[in-house]
Every structure is written in C-alpha cells, then in structure tokens.
C-alpha cells in the first residue's frame, strides 16, 4: 500500500521499503555467517576448509549480496536514528554525508577485497609474507 503524500523529495516510501528488503536478506545470511564464525571460534573449521568455502565464486557472490544488504540496512537504520535525534539541520546533513561516505568507502574496499584476493597481501593487519 503506497501513500500518496511522499514529501518534497517524493522518496518517502523508499527507505522504509529497502530497510525491510535488506532485513529479509540479512535474516537468512547472518545466521550462516555467524554460524561459520562460531564454528571457527570453536576450532571446528580449519583454515583450508574456510579458505575453500569462502573463496568459491558462489560464496563471493553471496558475500557481495550480504555486504550490500548490510550496508543498506545500516544506512536506512542510522538515517532514521540521526533524523530523530539530531535536531540542528546543518549537523544532521553533515553527519549523514559523513556516514554515507564511510559506508560507500567500506563497500568499495570490501567489494575489491572479495573479488581481488591479491589485495589481501597488503590489505590486512597481520599481512601475509609477500
């Protein structure tokens, strides 16, 4: 059910809609991810298994889908919180722009990492000896 009064930017419905869509994607992907992380933590997944699973093209595509769902959800969620609690327009706009830049930066960095494994030689904190 779409409302007719969409506000001045005519995008009133978008945030609400995409927040729900990303929520459903995360609802299915996060348990898998946390399951893998917890099993690794318990010592049930060796490096070779983890490497085989997460470098497979299917899991790379899934990682990209998860990444963008996560960042969409972060954006729509934090936007609502900032719009609710930051009452000075200038501060609100600046905060939202900083947030958007950070999220876009993280998305670019992670997308590049997921697909170009070579960057792991310099992109991680304890780097591989290359």
């Amino acid at each position: 059910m779409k409302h007719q009064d969409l506000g001045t930017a005519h995008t009133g419905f978008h945030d609400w809609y995409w927040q729900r869509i990303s929520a459903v994607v995360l609802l299915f992907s996060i348990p898998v991810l946390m399951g893998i992380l917890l099993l690794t933590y318990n010592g049930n997944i060796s490096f070779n298994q983890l490497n085989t699973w997460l470098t497979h093209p299917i899991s790379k595509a899934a990682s990209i889908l998860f990444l963008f769902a996560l960042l969409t959800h972060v954006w729509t969620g934090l936007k609502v919180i900032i719009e609710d609690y930051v009452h000075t327009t200038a501060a609100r706009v600046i905060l939202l722009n900083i947030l958007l830049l950070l999220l876009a930066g993280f998305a670019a960095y992670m997308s590049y990492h997921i697909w170009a494994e070579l960057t792991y030689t310099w992109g991680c904190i304890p780097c591989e000896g290359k």
Partner: protein
Amino acid sequence: MIQEMKQPPLSPRLSIYKWRLTMFASIAHRASGIFLVLVMPLLFWLLLSMAHGKTTYAFGLYWLQGSFGTLILWLTCVALFYHMANGIRFLLLDIGKTDSREAMKLSAKIVVFSSIIFALVLAIKI
C-alpha cells in the same frame, strides 16, 4: 501556551512516558542496532581475512579465543539474536499479523525473555 505551540516537542522524550516492556523493546532494538553497526562490518572483514591467509587465520583465532574477542563475540550474538527476533516481530507487525495491543505486549515479552535465555545459554556454552 503560545510559546509551547511555537516549539514543537522533539525526540527523545523518554522522561514523560511511563516505562513499559514494549517501549523497552523498541529502544533496545535501536541500541542493539547501533552496537551491531560498529561490530558486524568488522566481524565480516575478520572472517574474510581469516579465510584468505594462514597468518591472518592464526591471528583471528588467537584474538577471538582471547577474553576480549570472546566477550565481543558473545555480545554480538546476543545483540543479533535480539535484533533479529524483534525484527521478525516488526515484520509481522508490518504485514498486519500482530496489530493488537495484546499481541504487541505478548510478542515483546517473548522476544525479551527468549533473548535473556539465549544470552545465558550462550554464556555457558561459548
């Protein structure tokens, strides 16, 4: 009176309401959301890094199994469980399944208490 009309009330106005479980559930959804924003991208990055290098894997495992890493993992799992359970509650509300006041009170109780049980069980198991 006129002065009050000129200045519309702004959120957060927590002090004027009586605390209720449904209100707590709603605020905890935001609070856990903010915590997860800080932690989830890091954990995702950590997991992918661990999958791509033996040294990173060893470092990640060492960090996760330390007391701080375990605490973060426990907190994240609890926050995720709560945020997901309450998120499902909100999605059900959106499709009109739990519209009534009684249903919202009951579902808030279910979500909060199942999260507490989950947190305790995970604290023992982890």
